[in-house]
């Protein structure tokens, strides 16, 4: 008798599972797939989404807010930012030459945004960042504002080398 009862219970359990999948089969309105490249226009990320970083431009003057202080490069855990600066020949104040961003190392942790005191960095909302060539991941973020005399100078990018530009980890800084 016990096996009879056990079989009936088993059968009801199996049929209940089948009813659940059948329910989802006939309810076409419950499909949750989005057809990706076709719906690109309507696709927006949430405001706080952490895409790759980008420099903020001052709308009025058209210049980047970045003062090349190097705090972001110091805060970054794995040397994804290299800030090149020199002194402006006219005003004798430090100015940003190149802001080199190693996207292949960045972990999108956001510590650079937090460290910046001048509201110069933000996390953009780009999520389509795939490239075919790895060297395209070493990006210069202030390309349109590199000082004219230095545009053609080769960038000292830090791909593979731990200490160039501003040193970021405490060991590299010699504090240990």
């Amino acid at each position, binding site marked *: 008798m016990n096996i009879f009862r056990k079989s009936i219970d088993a059968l009801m359990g*199996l049929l209940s599972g*089948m009813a659940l*999948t*059948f329910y989802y089969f006939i309810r076409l309105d419950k*499909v949750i*797939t989005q*057809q990706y490249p076709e719906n690109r226009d309507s696709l927006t990320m949430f405001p706080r989404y952490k895409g790759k970083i980008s420099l903020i431009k001052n709308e009025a003057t058209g210049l980047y807010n970045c003062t090349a202080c190097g705090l972001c490069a110091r805060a970054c855990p794995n040397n994804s930012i290299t800030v090149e600066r020199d002194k402006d020949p006219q005003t004798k104040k430090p100015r940003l030459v190149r802001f080199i961003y190693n996207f292949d190392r960045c972990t999108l942790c956001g510590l650079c945004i937090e460290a910046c005191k001048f509201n110069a960095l933000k996390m953009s909302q780009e999520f389509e960042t795939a490239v075919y060539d790895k060297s395209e991941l070493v990006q210069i973020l202030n390309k349109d504002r590199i000082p004219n005399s230095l545009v053609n100078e080769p960038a000292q990018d830090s791909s593979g080398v731990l200490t160039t530009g501003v040193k970021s980890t405490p060991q590299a800084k010699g504090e240990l």
Partner: protein
Amino acid sequence: MQSWLYNVDRLVETFSNWLELRVGSSIAAEFVKAILAAGLIAVLVSVLGLVLVYLERKVAAHMQQRLGPMRVGPHGIFQTVADTIKLISKEDIIPAHADRVIHTVGPLICFVAAFMVIGFIPFAPGLQVVSLNVALLFILGISSAGVLGIISAGWASNNKWSMLGAMRAAAQIISYELSATLALLAIILFTGTLDLQGIVESQRTGWWIWRAPVVGIFAFLIYLIASTAECNRTPFDIAEGESELTGGFHTEFSAMKFAMFFLSEFINVFTVSAVSATVFLGGWMPFHVDGLDSLNKVFDLVPPWVWFSAKTGAIIFIIMWFRWTFPRLRVDQLMRFEWKFLMPLALANLAVASVLAVSGFYFFRS
């Protein structure tokens, strides 16, 4: 109704008369008809493969709240064509110390065993390639030759995982054949003939699934479960166990050989659905109840091949439904289920069916 839509055998007869006139001797005509029939079956198998693979992907997708193939053609209907082109153009890789002859022959055995059975199935009155009076016995015999293909595939791969899968498949398939045969036998007792066309004719007064009280339903369920195991489908797909053996016996096969395994699995599904539709659900016979002539006339309006396709399609859907709902059984549980539960049940079913058949205690005996 005498139009060709309903009586396809008139079409066949007309064509065969024309052929005899053209060719001259009837033996040559038979020869040409045989070649044409083989060609037609090949076309049917290909089309079936295309349609069934696409359907499987769509059914799976909708049960999982997604859409399935959508890009190749409107709603992805050419997806299987693209898959076939890909499979044909792939490189055929044979592992290093594998047995080359058996590696090539294994998939062929599986495919031939699956392919040969389609000739016996009656699609409509008169639309049957081979008319044999022991057709059901022949079908059961040939389809069990598929296990040879699986074992040889597992052996020839020189891969311990494939060997495991092949061993499991061998045990599983030869065990579940018993239950399948016993379930079919329960209905044969009522029909009195093994000829598939005769079985369909005997259901003119009603389908056996309800005409044989209780025994019909049980036999149908047992046959459904046993044939799901025969086709290596979940919940009985330990032979190819995707999560454990990543492919089981067909891991080391690529390109056309894999396509043969793939296709033979789907053809097997079609075959067991067709056989179960023929034996239990009446094949091409519309839904008749003896005595209710006006009702019968209403159901006769639908052409017989539509009835056949609908019934086979429904059973194929149920088999796919099983696959996407249930997890798989472990191999010892599978064997225990067969030998200790399903086969005794099938034997008991057969015993009760024989009592019912002899005493005439079923609906509309005629």
